[in-house]
């Protein structure tokens, strides 16, 4: 067992883990932080996405011991029921889910993706690699392609992410 310190949704947490424990299992099974979901456990679905030191990451493909000292933000830590994060609100506004299983991962992924786009990161859908990317629907689809939705709520997810992107742009201008 290895002693570990993590900041999870703003709270400092200490735990002893077996070295083979993934960050996802440490969060869900040891710390009872259940908003990141286990869809595939092999990096293929995105439902375990969290913000790890600020960047969207798959918690099923990293060992908890490798993240000693890290700051983890899950969808539950982004906002509260009375003060939703703009991305959470956008998913509600646009019905960006059906069963909701993929949603915490979608929300974290969208938050991370919008930050990447704001920093000018290109994507596979970007025509001009040297220009600042514009979040067209094709760009959003490509950038969110690491999050599968078994219910097929993609139309709502796209609309939600576009609303949040618009809000983020408006804030930037203000």
């Amino acid at each position: 067992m290895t002693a570990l310190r993590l900041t999870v949704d703003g709270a400092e947490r200490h735990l002893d883990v077996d070295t083979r424990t993934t960050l996802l299992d440490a969060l869900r099974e040891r710390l009872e932080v259940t908003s990141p979901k286990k869809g595939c456990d092999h990096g293929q679905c995105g439902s375990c996405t969290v913000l790890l030191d600020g960047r969207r990451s798959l918690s099923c493909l990293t060992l908890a011991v490798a993240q000693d000292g890290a700051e983890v933000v899950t969808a539950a830590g982004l906002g509260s029921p009375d003060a939703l994060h703009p991305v959470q609100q956008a998913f509600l506004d646009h019905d960006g889910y059906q069963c909701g299983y993929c949603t915490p991962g979608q929300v974290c992924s969208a938050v991370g993706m919008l930050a990447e786009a704001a920093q000018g990161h290109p994507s596979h859908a970007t025509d001009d690699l040297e220009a600042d990317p514009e979040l067209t629907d094709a760009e959003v689809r490509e950038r969110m392609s690491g999050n599968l939705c078994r219910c097929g709520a993609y139309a709502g997810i796209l609309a939600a992410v576009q609303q949040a992107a618009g809000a983020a742009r408006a804030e930037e201008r203000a």
Partner: protein
Amino acid sequence: MRELAYVRATSPDEAVAAVAGDPQARFLGGGTNLVDHLKLGIATPGTLVDVSRLALAEVEGTADGLRVGAGVRNSDLAAHPVVRRDFPVLARSLLAGASGQIRNQATTAGNLLQRTRCVYFQDASTPCNKREPGSGCSAVGGHDRYNAVLGASEACVTVHPSDLAVGLAVLDAEVVVLGPDGERRLPYDELHRLPGHHPEHDTTLAHGELVTAVELRRSPVARRSTYEKVRERASYAFALVSVAAGLELADDGTVSDVRVAWGGVAHKPWRARVVEDALRGEPLEEERVRDVVAEELRDATTTTGTAGKPAMLAGVTARALTRLAAPGPQVEEAGR
């Protein structure tokens, strides 16, 4: 999963000593491949030596190009302004791979050293010479859609899965490696190998050799380069085939230099040298590209699942090169 010790290395030398001295030890980068293999029971190291936090995560300018640290995350490398301007094939090949999340975690070295996605390699209950030398190859006569068409052996018919590996193959790259006896450099082309009788070795690296950097030289073909990938869905899928290409045109419009490499074709990125040699000095014409691709594929072996690969390669190679040749904003700028 067997019991596992975890060590966070504090220097490259310490990491090399820890792995070189222990046959059961392995380096850990972003973990996106190796952690999966632990779960699948197809990698059973006794110790993981984490090299992802070493000071190897910088992209630095050199006199004639760039030095990319082994620990640079795939997303950061693809977003680097010099990579986007001078080595577009590098950015494009990275961005064609995996997902935004995985690219935030994956490292340069880990990406190049990721192992095959062959379904039999990943299934510990089936024979696989790469996983267990001498056990046989289940992919011969099995699920064959992703199999090699060039350079395969009786022992192994799989391909290298990395997109970045194919993109780098058209650049003048060198791999910097640290071993117990110090540093050595190898031309990028010598990093990966064909399977022959030893498919258990993907590369020419010895156990305990740490990749510390990849170095790139600027050139006109690097500047005018691109990457195209054919896959079964629009995103987040491995390549059926892929093409990395770089082009330099003379003032009279003929090809003065050209580079082509293919993914999804062989156990290593396949430099299409027959294509390159044939196109140099000629005007670039689509039909001619298709013909010389067929020449490069003269010794190709296809099965039912891979029967479409030659046509895909012809089409995508022709498209990549003709797009690079078409005058556009980047091209004019590159010519200035």
